[in-house]
């Protein structure tokens, strides 16, 4: 498979504190890649570099190269980068002032879609893709925040998918959800990888095993090891990885 996202010598800082050291890796198109590692290892920072959200944090800095389909993201307009690389966060974050429909339509409107039937079509497609349509089709005008936690997270996924990104970043998308909602999101991730490249940060090692084709292990801001999920969990090359996946630290 072709490499969709590639980082070369990626370093990131928050003020003077360096959070990522020289990360070079490639993420394959149409795959699910899990980023694992203990708290503070830089996995979320790495994810936030991929859609250039890291640079929105005051005092932050990035150097190195991130390529999407071979194009240097650092040289592109940041808004166009974010249309191509969508993101879902740890806590469900529907826009509180918008209805279910408007939450999903927000990105489409940004893209310049104005015609009602195009908006309707885009919203329905995104909600169907996120597996939420049947649950909300009668309450599209209700506030997005009135849904349950799991539904809100799928609403956020639908919102991100509506603008048809090429890559979907998920930052611990299930950590605030109960097991049933988590199952639904994981099933959704399986379904999504046929159309999108998914990068997911997770604290839950079992989840990485369940959903990811490839897993990258970060420790103290460095990439320790990356490979097929099966290999990382059953035959890691690095002692550090083995200690982490067997629960000896973390």
């Amino acid at each position, binding site marked *: 498979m072709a490499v969709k996202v590639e980082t070369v010598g990626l370093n990131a800082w928050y003020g003077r504190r360096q959070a990522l050291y020289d990360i070079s890796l490639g993420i394959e198109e149409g795959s699910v890649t899990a980023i694992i590692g203990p708290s503070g290892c830089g996995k979320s920072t790495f994810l936030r570099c991929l*859609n250039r*959200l890291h640079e*929105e944090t*005051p005092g932050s800095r990035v150097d190195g190269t991130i390529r999407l389909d071979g194009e240097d993201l650092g040289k592109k307009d940041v*808004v*166009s980068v*974010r*249309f191509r690389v*969508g*993101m879902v*966060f*740890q*806590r469900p*974050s*529907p*826009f*509180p*002032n*918008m209805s279910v429909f408007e939450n999903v339509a*927000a*990105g489409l409107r*940004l*893209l310049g879609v104005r015609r009602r039937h195009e908006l309707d079509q885009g919203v329905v497609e995104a909600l169907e893709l996120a597996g939420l349509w049947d649950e909300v089709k009668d309450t599209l005008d209700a*506030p997005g*925040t*009135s849904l349950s936690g799991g539904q*809100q997270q799928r609403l*956020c996924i639908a*919102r*991100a998918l509506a*603008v048809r990104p090429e890559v979907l970043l998920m930052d611990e998308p299930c950590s605030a959800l109960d097991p049933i909602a988590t199952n639904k999101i994981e099933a959704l991730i399986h379904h999504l990888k046929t159309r999108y490249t998914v990068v997911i940060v997770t604290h839950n090692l079992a989840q990485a095993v369940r959903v990811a084709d490839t897993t990258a292990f970060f420790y103290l801001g460095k990439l320790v090891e990356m490979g097929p999920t099966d290999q990382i969990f059953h035959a890691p090359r690095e002692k550090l990885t083995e200690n982490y996946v067997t629960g000896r630290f973390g």
Partner: protein
Amino acid sequence: MVALTAFCVVLALAPLTSIVLTAVRLGGTAVVHPSFYTSLPPLGCNPSPGYACPLGGIGPEIQGTFIMMGLGALIAVPIGILAGVYLAEYGRNRLGRAISFFADVMTGIPTIILGVFVFVLFIYIYHDAALSALSGGVALGVIMIPIVTRASEEALRSVPTSVREAALALGFPRHRVSVRVVLGSARSALITGVLLAASRAMGDTAALLLTAGGSSFYFSSFTTQTAAITPFIFVNFGSSYQNLRTDAWGASLVLLAIMLGISLVARLAVRGHADAAGAA
């Protein structure tokens, strides 16, 4: 200890209760007449045997108060909200902290000083309108700006970072995040802030005495002297004419009722906000 605190509660509430009861006792006879809200103030008069004084009303005062408050809000709401956006979204630096401090100081400045400032300003730039609805509106606007600014800043800061980041990640340009998502999410808290500022401005007397002038007639233009409730109370509550004293107390009661109404609406807006946040 409980008895002491309860006693202090009674002491704290006593003035408010007394004010309301006094206003009802002395002004209650005026406010029950529908014409009180529409008529012009009467000529001063003391009742004599066989002759009841005309009660008149405070129609021009109510109208003038709302006109000047509206004008003040027109000035203060956009400036205050945009300043609040700056402080909340971009103001985490020395300039931002300085503006916050300045707004706090301005909130505490006695309004008579703000009134003098606006009056003198008009003497220099628009002499003919130094005592006018325009001047009064500007004075109320100056009173409201820092309140709206700080209220907006607090309202916007209460919108979670995750919502801002979600909007950025979706592709919203930074300025549209503030306008489309953050302001929208803080809507009810913003409405509350504006209403409380309006209520504060409406109850102000000193600045209006110096800027609105006075009139016994309905509003005629923005550049002529205009009636308002609080100056009316100030001028008439110590009048030697009984009907004017009654009207002043009636006006007090009306003012209290309007401010109570504004506070209730503000509370309802907060409740709406809390419901939305609670469901999140």
